[in-house]
């Protein structure tokens, strides 16, 4: 049983809603997935699909009002985070799960030196104090390849470029020595060449220190570079989860096929295949399958009945939320049965 | 064009008030105050300027002092004048001073501010230096110097307050024009070949109007307060005319045995200014064109 991947973070039936003036918005609607130790799980979806809310819900950082996690459980290394009192939850943040946010410009405190901000993470999560903590912080600057770290230690965030700030964010997250690192679109506001540098750094760090990463992104190119497994979100639900190679070669959900296809089309030239219609409006979600108004394969049942989250392959590796998975009619039925029996 | 089927009326006022009952109540109170002030004689039978000395310093009561007369609901003052009547007529002065100063200030300030914002360059620099100097100078004392030299009175009080009334509007109008002028909206206007006139009147003006309304409401509150302060010190309207600030100033000697002379005008100033502030806040939150619409 040595080679069996060991789940370190598992999320079950997580739902988070925002209660706004005009009604309830189900930002995350009953999602379940797990991350194995040492792997990179990419959480992919368009804006508003609930990726960031998922991350914040896991860390219990949804602010009420207006947001609230309604149901679900998050188990980190055998510990159910949703049952912890807030004071203990604080200890989980950082040393249990650390997070890199998407906007490096605003994610650092403008009135504190970057050194102090890294030191803070070191002091809280590694228990070091004073000079020792400072040494550690400088070491972390070295780890993320910041030149002349002793000098940079005393810089304020506004004195650094966007790419540098994102490196600092990575340094802060790593200083927490987390079991799981959540990276929320860490490169989406950076220029392409800087994005390449940051991704390269993350790849190298992953090799150096065996990190478990949940990588949130909307760019399938980054998924292809980084991910081991991929979870696709649509309108607050997980609609497909599988390993990265299957996802690119043989996606089962029509939506996944649509977004993967657009990359290939781009290379071929000629007209691009499109997913017709508009992204869902969370205020007015369709009945049945959330994707059915844009789906070319929809049938009557899709409009009325919400598909269950079913295991496609039978070995627990490929899950999908669709009545008619592409090119897998038989297996899907088997999966359904399996699900029904269990 | 494109006005025919109006299924979704976006500017329906009631819909906008739905989420802010406090602002709605404030607006109703303000309207009531205006109505009572305008139709003052309907609401009181007593003269605000002359009283019966035998009736002086009467506490509020619901019993009529004599046959056929109406009761002094809010009591009488040191000269036997009906406090309610003085309150209602006093509102005229307070509101008039507030409105005149705010309107004139807005007209001057918005015009100058828009010129500065639209033309930039020298015009902008000179105007903004003037505003800076004004902001760093003791405007209240300069206003008081006017009052001293010209003598106290309603007209001179308005002149004195006017000195400082335009700067906030000017800053506000200028910054709004600058924001809108640099926006993609105006750029797209240029790109489709719309002339300056069309851009200013069709696109810039309607989009800066609501922050300016907010400023106007807030400044109105500010000047009503300022009038009360100066009248309290005796630099505003002169007796026997009534104004809220003056009533408190005159009545404060009698505070130990006739609290009502001072209490009610203070409450009136408080309510008016408070309601204006609440309505102003609401306009800012609800109509701000730069805030992202839900």
């Amino acid at each position, binding site marked *: 049983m040595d080679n069996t991947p060991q789940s370190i973070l598992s999320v079950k039936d997580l739902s988070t809603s925002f209660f706004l003036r005009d009604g309830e918005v189900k930002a995350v609607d009953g999602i379940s997935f797990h991350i194995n130790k040492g792997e990179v799980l990419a959480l992919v979806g368009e804006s508003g699909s609930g990726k960031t809310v998922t991350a914040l819900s896991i860390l219990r950082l949804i602010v009420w009002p207006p947001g609230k996690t309604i149901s679900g459980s998050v188990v980190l290394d055998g510990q159910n985070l949703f049952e912890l009192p807030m004071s203990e939850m604080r200890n989980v943040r950082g040393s249990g799960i650390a997070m890199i946010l998407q906007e490096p410009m605003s994610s*650092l405190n403008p009135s504190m030196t970057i050194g102090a901000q890294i030191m803070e993470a070191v002091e809280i999560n590694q228990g070091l104090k004073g000079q020792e903590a400072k040494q550690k912080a400088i070491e972390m600057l070295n780890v993320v390849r910041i030149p002349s770290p002793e000098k940079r230690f005393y810089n304020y965030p*506004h004195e650094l470029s966007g790419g540098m700030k994102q490196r600092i964010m990575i340094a802060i997250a790593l200083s927490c020595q987390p079991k799981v690192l959540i990276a929320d679109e860490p490169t989406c506001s950076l220029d392409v060449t800087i994005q390449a540098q940051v991704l390269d750094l993350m790849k190298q760090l992953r090799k150096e220190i065996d990190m478990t990463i949940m990588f949130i992104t909307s760019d399938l190119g980054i998924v292809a570079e980084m991910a081991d497994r991929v979870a696709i979100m649509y309108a607050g639900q997980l609609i497909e989860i599988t390993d990265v190679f299957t996802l690119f070669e043989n996606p089962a959900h029509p939506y996944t096929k649509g977004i993967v296809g657009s990359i290939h089309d781009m290379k071929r030239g000629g007209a691009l295949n499109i997913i017709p219609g508009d992204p869902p409006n969370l205020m007015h979600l369709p009945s049945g399958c959330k994707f059915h108004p844009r789906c070319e394969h929809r049938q009557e049942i899709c409009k009325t009945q919400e598909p269950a989250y079913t295991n496609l392959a039978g070995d627990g590796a490929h899950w999908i939320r669709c009545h008619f998975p592409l090119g897998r009619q038989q297996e899907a039925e088997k999966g359904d049965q399996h699900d029904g029996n269990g | 064009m494109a006005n025919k089927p109006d299924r979704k009326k976006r500017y329906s006022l009631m819909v906008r008030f739905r989420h802010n009952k406090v602002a709605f109540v404030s607006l109703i109170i303000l309207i009531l105050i205006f109505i009572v002030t305008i139709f003052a004689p309907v609401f009181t039978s007593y003269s605000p300027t002359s009283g019966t000395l035998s009736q002086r310093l009467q506490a509020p009561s619901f019993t009529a002092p004599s046959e056929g007369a109406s009761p002094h609901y809010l009591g009488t003052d040191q000269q036997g004048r009906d406090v309610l009547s003085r309150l209602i007529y006093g509102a005229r002065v307070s509101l008039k001073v507030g409105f005149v100063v705010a309107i004139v200030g807005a007209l001057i300030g918005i015009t100058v501010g828009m010129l500065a914002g639209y033309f930039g360059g020298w015009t902008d620099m000179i105007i903004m230096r003037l505003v800076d100097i004004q902001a760093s100078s003791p405007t209240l004392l300069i206003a008081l110097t006017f009052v001293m*030299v010209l003598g106290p009175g309603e007209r001179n009080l308005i002149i004195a307050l006017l000195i400082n009334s335009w700067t906030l509007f000017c800053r506000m109008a200028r910054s709004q024009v600058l924001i809108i002028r640099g926006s993609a909206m105006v750029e797209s206007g240029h790109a489709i070949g719309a002339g300056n006139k069309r851009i200013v009147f069709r696109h810039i003006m309607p989009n800066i109007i609501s922050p300016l309304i907010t400023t106007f409401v807030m400044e109105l509150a500010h000047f009503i307060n300022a009038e009360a*302060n100066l009248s309290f010190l005796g630099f505003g309207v002169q007796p026997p005319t009534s104004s809220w600030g003056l009533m408190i100033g005159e009545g404060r000697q009698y505070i130990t045995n006739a609290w009502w002379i001072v209490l009610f005008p*203070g409450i009136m100033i408080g309510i008016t200014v408070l309601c204006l502030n609440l309505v102003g806040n609401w306009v800012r939150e609800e109509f701000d064109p730069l805030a992202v619409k839900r």
Partner: protein
Amino acid sequence: MGMGKYILQRLAFTVVVILGVSIMIFLITHVIGDPVAVMLPLQASEEQRVALTAQLGLDKPILEQLGIFLSDAARLDFGISWWQRVPCINVVMEKMPATLLLVTLACLIAVVVAIPLGIAAAYKPGSLIDRLLTGGSLLGISLPPFWIGLMLMLVFAVGLGWLPTSGIGSWRHVVLPAVTLAFNPAGHLAQIVRFEMIQQLASNYVLTARSKGVKEIVILFRHALKNIMTSAITMLGSDYAKLVGGLCATVEVVFGWPGFGHLVTDTIHNLDFPLLQTEVFFVAVFVCLLNLLIDILYAFFDPRIRY
């Protein structure tokens, strides 16, 4: 630009402001107003008028008068007060400390009350404490201070007899006027602290801090507080300047506090032109120096500001 150079620039601007204010005051008192008419009784003869005009130097060309006025002002020589018959500068200097004490105390009270409450309200928007604070701060800026003073006096001095109604002397005399004056700045300060704090708490760096396990109290006071200080200082500084610059007058009058505001009121009632000129000049200098101090404080709280 270096700090020193920036301060020099600001001092130069201060000179411009003071020059502008002086010219304005001169124009108001000498062109719009007529000092001779004010000083002489109504039935004064034409000879008396001419004599006084010459004595005051008002027969000279207006520009020359202005020149004399400005050069005297530069030497802090503002002439003799018509009302008190002593040099104006002495009168102002004598009254200033009492007002500075009162206003400083009022602002301290405002800070002590408003900042913690503003932070508490921002931490739980919509809670009871938030609603109370929002309502209270609106009252603080809406109610006229002289009326608040009278009501406090009615309750605590007249009714309960705990504190004296007016005058100056022991610490007990200063309580009521200082508390009264504190309402307005406290209202402003609470509003701005609440507003800014809500913005800060919703910002990404607070999320970063939370995600690395920082305690909430540390987030509030170590991370966020420093970032709202510039706005708070701006607001407090502007209120301080306004209070010293004459807004304290009504409250000083209510409580018989012999300070600068009270002096201004008396000056106007006594039509003392030179004294009022001195007062305006003084406040102008004071406000400018205060603004300079605030600018220097900015750089301390916000590392992005470099002069």
